[in-house]
Structure formats: C-alpha cells, structure tokens
C-alpha cells in the first residue's frame, strides 16, 4: 500500500507507482513526470493534484501525461511561447503609479487548473444559485424592501453601505413598470477559494464591472495556440458558448425591442486597470468600445456621438462602477459619467448590464445573512458557503468579533477595502483597529481566515511543479430561454485562476492559470474567435465611428509621424557626428541639425571634449524626461493607440508592443553608433506599424483620419526642413542638402534620377514638385486633398460650399502648382529667387498650419466636461 511515508517528504517512486496503476506509461513519460513532480511536497493540506496519500487525482493524469510528453525542454519552450504571445497580444494592465506607459503583464501558467466533471456540476449549481439569490435580493432592496421591514436584514446593514444608491430605488414606480423589462443581475463574477478541507468558499461577489472573463478567454486562446495538440485533444468544456449567451442576453435587453439593437461597451478609458480586457471583449463581441464622452442623454435616451451625428444606443455593457455613472444623480464629482443616465434607465430608454445600484450586492457584510436569505427568497439551503464571518453592526456579532479579535481578518464594508489580518498588526495598530470597529461597528466586517488548498504551479526557472494557494473567479450570465421573457443563469465552464493567498487581487498576482472544466467525453473543437458574432450587425467604421475614435486616430497619426521625423533627424545628426570624429573635420551641417532637433548647441569647449559634449547632448533625446526626446513623442502616440485599441489589428498591435519595449529600453545608450542603430530601429518599427495599419484597417473614415494626421505632420516637417536647408541655414550647402535627402530617405532616388552632384534645383524638383515621389510635398498635398474630400459630410452639409479644411488644402495645392519653377531654380545664385522661395514656403505653411484645427473643428466633438449647477460636498 501507498501513503505510509512521513508527510512532506517527496516520493517519486510512489508517484510513478500511482500513475502506473491503471495503465503503464512509456518509460520516457514516466521519467519526465518524475522529474516534474519529484519534489512536490505532501501533507501540507488539501491539494488539488495529489490526495492525502500522495496519489495523483485521476482527472489530472491525462493533462500531466500530455505535458510530460513534451519533455522538460519542450515545456520550457512552450512556456516561453505563451509569454511571448501574451506580450505580443498586449495582455497588459495599467499600474497607476507608472504613467509612462510601462504596462505590467502577468505570467500564464502552462499547466491549467483542472476541475473534474462531478466537482464542476456541484460548483455550477452553487454558482447559479448564488446569482439567483443576489438577483432576488437586488429586486427586494430596490423595490419593496420586505427583508428590512420583516427584520431579516438590519436597516443599518444596507443603508450604511455606499453601494446602496437611493437614486436607484424603484419602490415608488414598480406599478408603472412595463411588463417583462428585465432589470436584475445580468452578469456576475464570483471569487472562490478552495479551503484545506476541499470545500469551495465564496470570498467575494463582483457585479459592478466584473473583470476577468476576457482574460480567461485570452488565456485559453494563447495556451491553445502554444500547445495545440494538448488543447485539440482535451476532453475540455469550451468557453465560446458562454459569451455568446451573454451577447444574446444583451441584445434581448433592448428596451424598444429593436431588431438590431445597438449595444455598446462602456469603459472608464485607457487609464483603467482592465482597459485591455474592455477592448478585447468589445472586439470579441463585436461591440463599439465607448467612453462616457462618446455618450449623451437626450430625450431620456442614450445617444452615441459619431462622425455621422447622434446614433441611438439601446443597451450598455457597463464596465464603469455604479457611483461614477451619472453626475446628476450619483456622485456629483464624477467626470467620467453620463449626465441623465439614471433618468434614462428609469424611464426605460436604455438598458444596462448590470443595472445601476448592484454595488450593494458586493457588500461583504451580507455573507452572514445569506443562508437565511437563501431560505427566505429561494426556499433552498445555500449551496456555497462563505468563510465564517460577522457584520459588526450586529451587537452579538460584535461581541464575538471583539472576543476573538486577534484571530480574525477585518475589513471595512466599502468597496475595495483591504483585508487586514489582525495577527499581522503591531499591538498599537491592532488596538487602533479595535477602537475604530467599536466606534463605528456598522462599517466593519470580520471573518475567520481560510486555510487555502493548493494547486500545482509550473516554476519556469526550476522546471518543476510546486504547490501554491490560488483564487478562482467564476462567471455567471443570464441566458435567454426558448420563449420570450424566459431566462436562466448559466456559469462559464472555466474562469480565471490566479496564484496568491485568499483575497489577493487578481491584478496583483504574478501567475494566472487557465481553468479546465473537464468533460465526460472529448468535446468538438470549435474556433473561439468570432463564434459569438451573434445576431447583431453593426457598421464599425462608417459614419458610426465615434468622433472620439476619429480624434484619437488622427493624433495617433500625427504623433507617430512626429516620432519618425525626430528619429530620422537624430540618426542623421549622430551619423554626422561620427564621421566628423573620424575625419577630424567639423561637419558644418551639425549646428543646423541641432536647430532642427530644437537642441541647444553646447557652449564652446576644448576640441578634445567637443565630440563628447555633442554626443551627450544628442543622446539626451533618448532619455525619458527630455521634452523633445523620442520617448516623450512616443507616449502620446501610445496613449492614442490604446484609446483605439479595438480598431488596430493584432499584427499592428504586436509591432507596437515591440516598439514600446524598444523605446522603454532606449536609454542609456553606450555610444553614438548604438544611438544611431536605436533610431533606425524606431524608424523600422514605425514603418512596420503604419504599414500594417494601411494593410489591415478598412479604408474607411477611421483610417483616413489617421492618414491625414500623418501627412499633415509629414508635410509640415518636410517644408520646415527644406526651409531650413535652403533659406535659413547658418551653413547652407551640400552637407545640409545631403541631410535633407537622407532624412527623407531620398538619396537613392536622387542619385538614380539626377546622377549628379547635389544641386538645389534638383532637390526642389524631387522634394517639392514631383507628385510621383511619395516624399515630395506635391504628393503629400495631393494625398491630403483626396483624403479630405472623402471625409464624411457634417450635419450642416448639403451646402454647395467647401468646408474650411477643403479650402485650406486647396489653397496650399494651388500655391504649389502656380509656383514659378524656372525662376526658383536659381535659388543658389539669385537673391530674388531665394526671396521667392522663402515666400513660397511661407505661403504653403500658412494654410497647412491651420489645417489640423480646421479638421478638428469640423469632425471631432469637443465635449466639455459636465459641470454642476450647485457643488455638493461628497462623503469620502
């Protein structure tokens, strides 16, 4: 028999025996498994992989064999591949104290958390019961509040919680409510911990903006891509159906029952922790991703501001927390809300998932009341228990809590409050907490700490499995039934698991796991992406484009091009500097290049220090805090990219991530030549990025705005460079003309065409007039002209007159076309020609500098932040 060893000691041979019980393993697999599990400790409590006698639980066997068959090297390679995919797909979340766009990412364990079918059936029943329970509680709390009148819930428990929103009370209106309007809990995240007895315990409910379903999906897709054999064969429940169900539910919520309801996903914006997931889900479910400024309430309905005017919105999938949603009736200091939203929801003009007011369901003080509530509301015993806990507002509970204070975990009732383990506090801190609880008992909850079970985690440094405590977030959604108005709850067969002690926030964890719910028999492999397209058809990129998105794409283009120009100029400057050093002659163009880069020419220094000073000055442009530097140029580009995350292709996003990593690693640079190479890499990556955008983005309005942004920036820079080289340079001449050609990457074109020494006339021809040269001003104006012509007509259209931006681009084009080329060609010898050329540059720059504002004025809505008529003090 097995299991007589001293607990805690590894016993590889025993494991091998255990595995061999049913069917023999190949010697290689057995060996790999042994290496894998060799020192997996036993006896520290419940473990999901091994039972108390050290035997492998049967449902893990297939998974482990499959992983072991990859071999140590193979698995390490797959693990790296998973990380690479995560990184490239931009599965990142924001960390607030890092404003420079350095996003954290987590590690996805190649070993999923496996749950056997029987365990899942039980868990699933408990999860859906919990959703039914909270839904019934929600209906009562914002309706008749019988639970309070009957004394089931103490009034202080509910009214003291900041999530109980008086504005969402429906008590007075239930009579007039249209029949069949669903207003309850739609989507529910449930945080679970497996305790050391092997029981699942619910530690938190997430209903306001439950994140994680998108991450779960992305983890699954990435692992399946990295380990295709494993996933294709696995008897594994698939996730696609769940989000499809959610999608159908959203569509069914449409208050006006339109055939093609307009559903949007409302995000707080790119600064939110879970913005990646918002963008990811929006894409997956084919919903426009909107921020509050994209929405406006008129006529008690919600409308989206698009390029083509206001478009009605029927359903909002909300990732914005309750309190911030409406500055009129909820938190008045919210700048990210939609004024009038509560009234629109109240009058039936919009449906929200979840409805406003649900945050009271996240109240940790409800836990001790749930068994009684479940009996009272559903007539069933509560299936999934919470850890033993007490709401201190109840006098008897307070007494218990104070008696056992040091052994408990204490937290405030407000959303996001930290769990404080009293035993981890100093005496003074513990006393202070105790006094705070006694002073305001209704504001505190205490619970007995949970001893967590462990799950195997792959250690990518040691190539071994180690047991670690973990949390699991499961998801439940409503699913429409066969008949109209019918619905039921359905749990996602999977979820997001993360390593950490009970209650560790998912975003604070280093390692996350896919969750496998095993099926009795192999499941057909379904492609996940686009499975859920569902019944909704939305034109994504026509005039339905939110004006904010157009705005961001435009500035993405401008900043991207600005970065490109600066990287090219810096490259040339560093190149000149290097040549100067070798040939020991001072390159006369350098001073002008410094000017173009808005750098100060270092004060005269001894000749031997001159090179070092110039190099140091130039390389500051690679530093983070240099206002004119490359990182400072990249940050606004990145910000705009992230604001339009759902409009960029995956390949473009992958390149952007490379570029981000490159930019973050720019400084310090050891040498001028390394700096030059770094600049070239920026140029290459940018060109790949915009190239992929051009190849993959539909050539609709969104793309046009990006293109216009790029070409406005490029034409302005080209003109300024020419102006500098031909008119304003301190040292005009061949050296600077070379710089102009090199910066615009036209040296080869020049040589091939003119086969001559550099000559200003030829340069002018190539860079100003030749419409066939994509780097010429002529070409750029033509392109801008065409793009601007094709922008959507605003509401005031129908007039035969040209809009301002059309007039400006026309003015620039005709100025160029009417220029006297013959006369200008004498620029290097005639003062008169020089003046004419200077005037020409001025005449071109003048309308082009106004172009950006004109486009913004015509097409981007400049929404002012809502303001309060009276300023109300807000309770902290």
């Amino acid at each position: 028999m097995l299991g007589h060893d001293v607990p805690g000691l590894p016993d590889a041979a025993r494991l091998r025996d255990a595995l061999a019980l049913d069917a023999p393993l190949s010697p290689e697999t057995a060996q790999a498994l042994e290496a894998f599990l060799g020192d997996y400790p036993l006896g520290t409590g419940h473990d999901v992989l091994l039972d108390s006698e050290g035997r492998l639980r049967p449902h893990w066997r297939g998974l482990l064999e499959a992983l072991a068959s990859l071999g140590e090297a193979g698995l390490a390679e797959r693990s790296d591949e998973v990380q690479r995919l995560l990184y490239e797909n931009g599965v990142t979340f924001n960390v607030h104290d890092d404003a420079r766009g350095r996003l954290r990412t987590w590690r996805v364990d190649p070993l999923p958390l496996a749950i056997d079918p029987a365990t899942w059936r039980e868990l699933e029943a408990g999860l859906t019961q919990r959703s039914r329970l909270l839904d019934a509680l929600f209906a009562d709390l914002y309706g008749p509040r019988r639970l309070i009148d009957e004394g089931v819930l103490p009034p202080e428990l509910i009214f003291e919680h900041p999530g109980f929103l008086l504005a969402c009370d429906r008590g007075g209106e239930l009579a007039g409510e249209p029949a069949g309007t669903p207003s309850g809990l739609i989507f529910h995240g449930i945080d679970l911990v497996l305790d050391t007895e092997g029981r699942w315990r619910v530690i938190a409910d997430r209903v306001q903006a439950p994140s994680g379903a998108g991450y779960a999906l992305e983890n699954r897709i990435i692992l399946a891509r990295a380990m295709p054999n494993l996933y294709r064969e696995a008897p594994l429940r698939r996730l696609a159906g769940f989000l499809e169900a959610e999608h159908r539910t959203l569509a069914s919520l449409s208050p006006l029952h339109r055939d093609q309801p307009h559903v949007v996903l409302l995000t707080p914006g790119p600064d939110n922790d879970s913005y990646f997931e918002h963008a990811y889900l929006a894409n997956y479910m084919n919903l426009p991703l909107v921020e509050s400024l994209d929405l406006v309430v008129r006529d008690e309905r919600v409308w989206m501001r698009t390029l083509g005017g206001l478009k009605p919105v029927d359903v909002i999938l909300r990732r914005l927390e309750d309190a911030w949603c409406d500055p009129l009736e909820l938190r008045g200091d919210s700048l990210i809300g939609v004024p009038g939203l509560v009234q629109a929801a109240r009058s039936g003009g919009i449906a929200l998932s979840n409805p406003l007011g649900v945050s009271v369901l996240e109240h940790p003080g409800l836990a001790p009341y749930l068994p009684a509530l479940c009996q009272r509301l559903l007539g069933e015993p509560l299936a999934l228990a919470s850890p033993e806990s007490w709401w201190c507002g109840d006098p008897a509970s307070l007494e218990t809590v104070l008696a056992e204070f040091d052994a408990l975990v204490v937290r405030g009732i407000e959303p996001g409050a930290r769990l404080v383990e009293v035993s981890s506090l100093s005496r003074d801190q513990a006393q202070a907490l105790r006094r705070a609880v006694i002073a305001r008992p209704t504001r505190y909850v205490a619970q007995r700490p949970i001893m967590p079970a462990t799950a195997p985690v792959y250690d990518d440094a040691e190539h071994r499995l180690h047991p670690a405590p973990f949390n699991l977030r499961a998801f439940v959604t409503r699913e429409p039934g066969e008949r109209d108005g019918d619905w039921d709850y359905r749990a996602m067969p999977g979820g997001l698991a993360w390593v950490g002690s009970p209650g560790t926030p998912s975003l604070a964890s280093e390692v996350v796991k896919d969750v496998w719910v095993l099926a009795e028999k192999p499941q057909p492999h379904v492609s996940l992406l686009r499975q859920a397209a569902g019944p909704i058809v939305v034109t994504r990129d026509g005039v339905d484009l939110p004006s904010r998105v157009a705005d961001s794409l435009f500035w993405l283009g401008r900043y991207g091009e600005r970065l490109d120009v600066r990287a090219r100029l810096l490259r040339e400057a560093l190149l000149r500097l290097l040549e100067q050093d070798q040939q020991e002659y001072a390159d006369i163009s350098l001073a002008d290049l410094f000017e173009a880069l808005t750098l100060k020419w270092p004060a005269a220094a001894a000749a031997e220090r001159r090179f070092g000073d110039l190099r140091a000055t130039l390389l500051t442009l690679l530093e983070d805090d240099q206002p004119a530097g490359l990182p400072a140029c990249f940050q606004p580009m990145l910000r705009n990219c992230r604001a339009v995350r759902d409009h960029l292709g995956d390949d473009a996003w992958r390149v952007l991530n490379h570029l981000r990593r490159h930019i973050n690693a720019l400084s310090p640079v050891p040498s001028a030549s390394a700096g030059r190479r770094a600049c070239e890499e920026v140029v290459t990556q940018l060109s790949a990025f915009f190239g992929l955008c051009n190849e993959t983005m539909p050539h609709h309005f969104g793309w046009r705005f990006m293109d216009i942004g790029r070409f406005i920036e490029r034409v302005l820079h080209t003109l300024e460079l020419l102006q500098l080289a031909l008119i304003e340079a301190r040292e005009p001449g061949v050296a600077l003309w070379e710089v102009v050609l090199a910066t615009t990457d036209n040296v080869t074109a020049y040589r091939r065409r003119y086969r001559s020494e550099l000559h200003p006339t030829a340069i002018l021809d190539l860079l100003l007039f030749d419409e066939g040269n994509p780097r010429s001003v002529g070409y750029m104006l033509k392109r801008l002209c065409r793009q601007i012509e094709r922008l959507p007509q605003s509401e005031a259209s129908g007039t035969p007159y040209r809009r301002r931006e059309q007039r400006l681009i026309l003015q620039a084009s005709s100025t160029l076309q009417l220029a006297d080329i013959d006369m200008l060609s004498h620029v290097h010898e005639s003062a008169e020609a020089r003046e004419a050329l200077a005037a020409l540059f001025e005449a071109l720059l003048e309308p082009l500098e106004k172009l950006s504002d004109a486009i913004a004025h015509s097409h981007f809505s400049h929404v002012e932040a809502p303001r309060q008529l009276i300023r109300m003090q807000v309770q902290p």
Partner: protein
Amino acid sequence: MIYRLRHTTRYTYSAPVTLCHNEARMLPRELPWQRCEDSQVDIDPRPAVRSERSDFFGNRVMYFAIQDIHSSLEVTVRTRLETLSRPPLPTVMAGDWQDCRDALARAAERRCLQARQFRLDSPFIRRHPRLAGYAAPSFPAGRSLLDAVIDLNRRIHEDFTYDATFTTLATPLMDVLDERRGVCQDFAHLAIGCLRSQGLAARYVSGYLETLPPPGQARLVGADASHAWLAVFLPGWGWLEIDPTNGSVPGEQHIVVGWGRDYADVPPLNGVMSGGGEHTLDVAVDVIPDDETSRRTA
C-alpha cells in the same frame, strides 16, 4: 392657513449652455396637515423633457432637460396650498430618552426600522463626539426624549447667531460649531448631527416659512426664502419637527416641501450642464397668505 407660494430660481450663465439635465424638488408634498393644489410650473427656456416621480423618501421630484443652446434658466413654481395644525405634542412619554434610544435600536416595528436609517452618517453630516458633547447638557439621564429635544432646540437658537455671510453650501459642521454662526440649513444639520451622535434618528426638512412683515409695514414681495428645519423620531409617537433657527416647534406657517438625510437629498434645484462658464443665481420666494392676496385684489 391657505397660502399662495411662489418660488423663482434664475441662473444666468456667462457662456452658452448646450445641454442641461436638472432635478427640482420644489413641489410641496402632500401630508395629513398639508393639502396642495396642482402646482403651476414655468420653465424658461422650455424643456424638451419633463417628468415627475417620487424619490426614495417619497418627495416629489421634477426632472427636466433643456436641449437647446441657452444662456439663462428660470424656474418658477406656484402652488396654492392649505396647512392645518400638526398633531399635538405627546403629553406623556414612556420612559426617559435613553429608553427611547435603546427601543429604537432594538425595535422590530416597521416605522422604527424605517427610521433607523436616519441615525447613520449622510453626505453632509457625520456623527462626532464633539456633536454629542454639545448635545449632552440637554440629555441628562432620566429626562424624557421630548424635553431633551425641545431643550436642544432652544439652546441652538440661543447659542448661535444667524449670519448669512458666514457659511456656504460646503461649510463643515465643525466650523459652524466652532464659530457659533450660520444659516437655517447649518442649524438643521447641526441639530441632526447632535441627535444622531446621541444615537437618535433625525431627518432634514426642506420647506418655506411665512415671515410676518414688521407691524404697520407691507410685505415685501420676494423677501421670503426657502427654509430648513428637522424632525426627530420619537419611538411610539412619530416624527417631531423642530426649528432650531427660530427655537420653535413648526406649525401652520411651516410649509413642507420634502425631507431626506440632509440637504444633499433635497436641494430645490440641482443640475448638470455642458458649457455655461460662470453663473449668477437669483432666488425669490413669496409665501403669501391667501386672505392677504384676496384683500390686495379686492
């Protein structure tokens, strides 16, 4: 008494407003001792949307939205209503104020359960030992709750100076306590804070008070203002109104618009707008006894 009530609020903006959403709590609520005829509401410019509902506390709320560009907003509510005398004060209170406090905390009776939310903190009012301390002399052991409340009402009236220049909407309660001055809203908040800090339930009442012109002088039109007082819950009896600004117990001259936990629940006009720049506010309130209007027109 029969009154004709007129409340005009006018906002003038320095820059155009393109869209505004508003909530007005200016329609007096129906009470056993207050009968309201239909109000006449004039909003300029004309709102695109207007609807009425009752809020969590049962107050009448009028929502309206103006969707065209405008540079001023004027809301006038005219209501004719009759006030009767309120129920007489209880003559005998069972037990002392501490018994009442404990009964409230334990009671399973519906009205008590519903009153208990008014013992908690609210946006403008947080319970505080200093507030309990100020209230303490009115609450000696053994005194009846009614006597204690009436005494607190009297003391606030005597200790504090009415000073419209001192406070703003956001003056913290502790400043009011330190400086011993404020307006009706501050005194109502202060009294509520004192009562809640003693473990009692108290709510804020928003309304109007008929002010009598000095003898021999005519009433000045628009000279009245909106007024605020409070009510405290007496277990076994109900809500008792007190007016610490005047040190009185409200009667027929106190017209109730609505109530809540504090001012934040019942501002007469609240709104969110796009644009607007700076704004100026003019408010005019007339509370005119109906016999007087009939005399004037006669």
